[in-house]
């Protein structure tokens, strides 16, 4: 790709970027949120038309007019935002657009075989091909998406943050697959905010900043610190800043709580000033537990006690009144109202500072929001910009900022750092510490063990819907968590 540029209105997403991908290499694309990585690969896949610049494919100029066009040229892509048709089954989604047919009618058996093979490849045979995708959790959906990219024998495979909602184990499997594909001569573009991953799998890398190419070279030639320096223009002091905080009374307590979709009853308690980490594999039931606490799923059995008040029934609005805040792992379908503006999304859960007699004071609100945008470092042209036009990581930051703006006491965070760049991540860890030191309680669900180990006071491990073990962080290490999460017994 040579001299590729793209503008969206006033935003310059890409400015004269070059990218060279060699046969059989893994090429990492790095940059902070909103640097233009996704836009660049979308141009390659034909989903976005560039304003200028040319692409050469095996020496010939190539300008993909549609995703279909680029797929025909052997480019296969996993987009950052999940792209699945919720009403269709897993099999139908995996084979979408490449159905095997005879005279226009589907050849069921052959397709089933292919799907089985792809699922085996990523070791997720437990996902039934006949299940409707809307019934899967976000993690499982990501697996389906990867399976889709694998059924096709592509020449170029583009992965835009494939591991953002995968567990450690699944990521490992993916890396093995990548290695194998590489030996088969497949070229891979790999986008990720997990820099260690990049160092592990990538042969070469390119760094983007504000839509410009900053650096391109072999992976082994640059150190982690240099990478970060190139990405954001400053050094990262401490990935997991330690902010001292003390735990107080119990604020939230689950007594044998079982929600409609949970597989088992869960007992748990959370104190003021405590950061509780929840670890587990895909489908372990962490999301479902949080959703039940927050009243998004109906309670079937047991009860929960919020600040000494025992309840079993409750809708999200009552939980918010009780001082809870929830960050959904599914920002695309649930987390954000993407056609609304950044201002609206940010303030949706708490209008009270700007409300007088049922009316909003818009100016005051805009001003307040500007502070939050600066604080959370959201890259946005104008606070009235609709959320769908933000980059993936920036959308996640909007969802996070909403929780801060809500001024909750109990934070339920489901994969909050999904798709967020390194620097911002460390900033988020810092806030979590600060919130805890102010006496707030935080439940922190993550599939990324280092961050759990880095900032939590306590870690609980889930296995098949059951809470296996809960211990202070110092008594855990990566190994023992993995054991508990995969085998379901304290390691």
């Amino acid at each position, binding site marked *: 790709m040579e001299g590729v540029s793209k503008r969206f209105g006033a935003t310059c997403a890409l400015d004269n970027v070059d990218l060279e991908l060699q046969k059989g290499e893994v090429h990492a694309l790095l940059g902070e949120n909103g640097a233009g990585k996704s836009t660049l690969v979308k141009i390659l896949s034909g*989903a976005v038309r560039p304003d200028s610049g040319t692409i050469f494919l095996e020496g010939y100029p190539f300008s993909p007019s549609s995703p*279909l066009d680029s797929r025909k040229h052997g480019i296969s892509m996993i987009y950052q935002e999940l792209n699945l048709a*919720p009403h*269709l089954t897993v099999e*139908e989604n995996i084979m*979408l*657009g490449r159905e095997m047919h005879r005279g226009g009618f589907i050849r069921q058996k052959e397709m089933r075989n292919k799907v089985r093979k792809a699922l085996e490849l990523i070791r997720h045979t437990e996902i039934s091909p006949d299940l409707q995708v809307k019934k899967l959790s976000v993690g499982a959906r990501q697996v389906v998406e990867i399976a889709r990219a694998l059924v096709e024998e592509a020449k170029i495979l583009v992965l835009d943050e494939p591991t953002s909602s995968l567990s450690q184990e699944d990521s490992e499997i993916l890396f093995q697959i990548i290695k194998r594909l590489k030996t088969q001569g497949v070229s891979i573009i790999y986008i990720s905010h997990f820099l260690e991953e990049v160092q592990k799998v990538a042969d070469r890398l390119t760094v983007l900043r504000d839509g410009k190419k900053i650096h391109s070279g072999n992976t082994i030639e640059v150190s982690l610190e240099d990478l970060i320096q190139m990405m954001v223009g400053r050094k990262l002091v401490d990935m997991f800043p330690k902010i001292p905080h003390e735990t107080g009374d119990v604020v939230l307590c689950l007594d044998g709580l079982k929600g409609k979709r949970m597989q088992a009853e869960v007992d748990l308690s959370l104190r003021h000033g405590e950061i509780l980490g929840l670890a587990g594999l895909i489908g372990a039931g962490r999301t479902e537990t949080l959703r039940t606490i927050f009243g998004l799923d109906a309670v079937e059995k047991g009860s929960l006690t919020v600040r000494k008040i025992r309840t079993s029934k409750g809708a999200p609005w009552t939980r918010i009144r009780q001082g809870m805040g929830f960050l959904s792992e599914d920002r695309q379908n649930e987390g954000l109202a993407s056609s609304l503006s950044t201002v609206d999304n940010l303030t949706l859960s708490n209008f009270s500072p700007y409300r007088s007699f049922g009316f909003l004071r818009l100016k005051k609100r805009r001003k307040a929001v500007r502070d939050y945008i600066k604080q959370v470092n959201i890259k946005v042209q104008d606070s009235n910009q609709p959320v769908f036009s933000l980059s993936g990581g920036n959308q996640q930051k909007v969802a996070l900022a909403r929780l801060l703006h809500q001024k909750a006491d109990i934070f339920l965070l489901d994969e909050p750092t999904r798709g967020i760049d390194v620097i911002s991540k460390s900033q988020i860890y810092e806030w979590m510490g600060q919130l805890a030191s102010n006496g707030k309680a935080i439940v922190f669900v993550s599939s990324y063990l280092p961050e759990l180990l880095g900032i939590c006071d306590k870690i609980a491990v889930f296995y098949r819907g059951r809470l296996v073990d809960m211990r202070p962080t110092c008594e855990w290490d990566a190994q023992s968590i993995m054991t508990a999460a995969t085998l379901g017994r304290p390691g």
Partner: protein
Amino acid sequence: MKEKSRIQTVINWLGPFLGLILVMVIFSSIPEVRDRFLRVPNLKSVATQSVIVALGAMGMTLIIISGGIDLSAASNIALSSVITAFAINAGFPPLLAIFLGVITGGLIGLANGSLITSLRLVPFIVTLGMLGIARGIAKWTAGNQKIDAPLTWVNELMAKSPRPSWLLMAPGVWMMIIFAVVMAVVLRYSVFGRHIFAIGSNEATARLCGIRIKRTKIIVYSLAGLFCGLGGVMEFSRLTVGDPTVAVGLELDIIAAVVIGGGSLSGGSGSILGSMIGVFIMSFLRNGCTMMGWPNYIQEIIIGAIIVVAVALDQIRHRKNF
């Protein structure tokens, strides 16, 4: 809990037929019409009365699954019936007249599809516009009155007692059955059918997976147009005249049938079997109410209520899945 789940098993087993069975049981148990309601001649009339809506509903099912809607269906039926009558009146051979009627419907559908895809307008608006345009053209062609066409075999298509008596039912009813089976198979087992579901479920995904959205949509709307065209021919066959004012508001009946049958207006779900059941629920309701001699307002209230109840039942049936 136990009790509830047993009821749900029954509900599930009877499944999509539940609403239809309910309606039939009700009327079969009213002494006044009991002995007449379930008799063959009445079933034949109901079948014949359902043909036009059923044809419209087949196309509408595709459109609704793809996430669209077609408000122009009824106008399209009227226009096609006028064109057929016009052609027969002008002395064209009946087969050609039928062909022209069906093609007219197809062209209106094609126009819908092209406008929707090329101007990227919402189907509701395009077809609302087309509702007026097609109806206007129908009145224009017919010179603002009905067209009397000489009787031909076209008018036998919807005759309750068909000419070769071994047919048992009107040829139109057979056509309806055959097309329903064909469309059900196409929708379930063809690549085209699957693409329609994908587009309705998530259009962006469908595009990124390389499905030709424009082409698929244009085909869907054209196909639906052709079905409306055929419906128009049937309407002409039934009326023996080309009437530009016929079928006003029928689009809502057609859409209701599809939705009663499990179609979702946000796209991605629906089935031909369901839609056909929806059509027959409404036909039997009308038929039963008329046979009872109930005034129209009672009929309107009852049908309104049944639409809600039928869909609510369907909802309960599906809810247990979670």
